[in-house]
C-alpha cells in the first residue's frame, strides 16, 4: 500500500512537470502572430469558440484591436490583460491557474485520484480475503 501511494505521488509529480513544461516559454514560438492570441481569446457571443474560429461582429473587432496593439509593440500578456480588464477572466479560453480557478484545474484530478484509490483498495482488500 505504501509502495502504491508512493507510485501514485510519483505519477502526479511527473504529470505536473509535463504540464509546466508544455506551458513554458522554452517551447513557445519567439515570433508572436496575431492568430496565436486569437486562439486564446473567447468569443463572447459563441459557446466554447475562440475569436479565431468566429466570424461574429465582436470577434472581428477584437481581432482588429489585437492586431493594432501588436503593431504598437504590446506583448501577448499586455493584450490579454487589457481584454481581461474589460471582460473579466472568462474572456481567456484557458482559465488562469489562481485561487479562484484552483478547483477547476485540480478538481477533476483529485476526483480521479480518489476513484483510483477506492478502486485499488477494494481490489486489494478482496485479494487479501
Amino acid at each position, binding site marked *: 500500500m505504501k509502495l502504491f501511494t508512493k507510485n501514485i505521488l510519483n505519477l502526479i509529480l511527473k504529470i505536473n512537470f509535463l504540464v509546466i513544461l508544455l506551458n513554458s516559454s522554452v517551447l513557445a514560438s519567439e515570433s508572436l502572430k496575431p492568430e496565436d492570441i486569437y486562439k486564446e481569446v473567447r468569443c*463572447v*457571443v459563441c459557446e466554447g469558440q475562440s475569436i479565431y474560429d468566429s466570424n*461574429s*461582429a*465582436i470577434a*472581428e*473587432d*477584437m481581432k*482588429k*484591436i489585437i492586431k493594432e496593439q501588436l503593431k504598437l509593440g504590446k506583448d501577448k500578456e499586455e493584450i490579454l490583460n487589457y*481584454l*481581461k*480588464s*474589460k*471582460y*473579466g*477572466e*472568462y*474572456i481567456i479560453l484557458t*482559465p488562469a491557474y489562481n485561487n*479562484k*480557478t484552483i*478547483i*477547476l484545474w485540480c*478538481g*477533476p484530478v483529485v*476526483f480521479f485520484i*480518489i*476513484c483510483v484509490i*477506492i478502486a485499488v483498495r477494494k481490489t486489494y482488500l478482496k485479494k487479501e480475503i
Partner: protein
Amino acid sequence: MNTKLSISKLLPFIIFVIFIFTMIHAIYNFRKSLDSSPMIGKDLPEIQLKDLFDDSQMISDKTFPKEYILLNIFGSWCVACKIEHPFLMKLKEEGVKIYGINWRDEESVAKEFLGKYGNPYERVGVDKEGKVIIDLGVIGAAETYLIDGNGKIITKYMGVLNETIYQEYFKSYIKN
C-alpha cells in the same frame, strides 16, 4: 456491520455528487465574470468619436453632461435595437438623456434608421471599428450603460431595454 457495508457502497456515489456540485459551482463562478462586467464601477474609458450628424464634431466623454445619462450601443442591423427603439423614444420624451454609439454601420444607413424610427439620442458617435465598443467591454448590441454625472459606469444591461428592465436596472440608481 450492515451500516458499514451501506456506507462503503454509497461512498463513491457521494464523492461523485460532491464532485459534480463543486465543479458546477466553480464553473458558474468562472463564467460570472462575463455577466458582471469588470467595467462596472470604473470610469468611462476615453470616448472620441465622430458625430454621426456632423463629422466636423466629435463626441467626447469629457463633454457628457454632469448628470445621469444612458449610453446606448446600437446598429441599424441589430434586431434587438429595433425592438427597444420605441422605448428609447419614450425615455427621451420623459427627459432621460441618451447618448448613442452607432456600431458597424455606414453613416448613411444609420441616419436612415434614425430618420425612419425616430432619434432618441442627444448625440450619436460613430464607432465603425469597434474600438470604443471593446474599451467599454461591450458584448453586443443592444447594450445600455448608466453613467453618473462624474463619468463613472454605474451599471449596464445587455439586451432589449424595456420598462421593466429600466425600472429594475436603472431607475433605482437615478432615484437615489
